[in-house]
């Protein structure tokens, strides 16, 4: 588990974000799509991309919430927030999905997934 001061994320997620998941063709395609999208936004693991993502996850805690993505489950609360991100190649955004155990918004959230948006 990687930890910033105010957010945590499982190490395996970085494999998924940076194109290293090959467990089946569908997941491999999705993982490579994540890699390509992040690179378009200027986020490259070889050049501090992991640290940049952690910075985005931190920024996202105060970013605009996508209210239609809020979901309450037995385990806790899931919230999506949108962080504007621009690389040299493309402008876009990353939607960060946070999980708050037991619905406690004072607890440290865990990042459970991202969606990279590439603007035209």
């Amino acid at each position, binding site marked *: 588990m990687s930890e910033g001061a105010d957010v945590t994320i499982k190490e395996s997620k970085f494999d998924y974000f940076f194109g290293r998941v090959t467990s*089946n063709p569908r997941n491999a*395609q999705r993982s490579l799509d994540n890699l390509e999208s992040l690179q378009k936004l200027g986020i490259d693991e070889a050049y501090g991309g992991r640290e940049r993502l952690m910075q985005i996850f931190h920024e996202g805690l105060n970013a605009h919430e996508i209210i239609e993505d809020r979901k309450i489950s037995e385990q806790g609360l899931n919230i999506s927030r949108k962080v504007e991100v621009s690389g040299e190649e493309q402008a876009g955004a990353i939607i960060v*999905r946070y999980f708050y155990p037991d619905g406690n918004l004072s607890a440290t959230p865990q990042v459970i997934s991202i*969606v990279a948006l590439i603007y035209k």
Partner: protein
Amino acid sequence: MKLQIVEESEFNKIEGVRQVIVHDYSHKFATIDFGDILGRYGLSWRSTLVDPIVEFSTAQNTLWIGVDRQLAAICPQSGRLRLIMPLTSNILQLLILDTLTVVLSENEVLIFNPNGSIRYSKSLPDIPEEISIIGTDLVINLLSGDSLTINPQTGAFKQSALA
């Protein structure tokens, strides 16, 4: 029922009610042709490396379509929409079984009855690798190495760590 990749201009010619899957900031566009009588439906999605999943139900009376964060189900005999549903994360797999359809996304698993109503939904603790049917249970393997077992008839649930 063939998926055909088209230009955005071609997608935009399809009337809005027939654009069954639409994403903001789409980069890919496609049509599915149901023939001369029922006509075409349109899809748009963001991912450049991931194509839609298109699967018939076992009884051939529903065509399930999923890509990125949108799910649709269409009756191929009447052309009626059984379901259009936005999800909160990307769809990874559709599993078609005799009496149900299972949708696996990065954050949750959804089980649908044959008419498109939701039988069961559950948030997942990690991104899943795959869902499969083993005996009468659904087994979800997660990237973390853990696995989840769900009985699709009762919702009985068990989480275990893989050795």
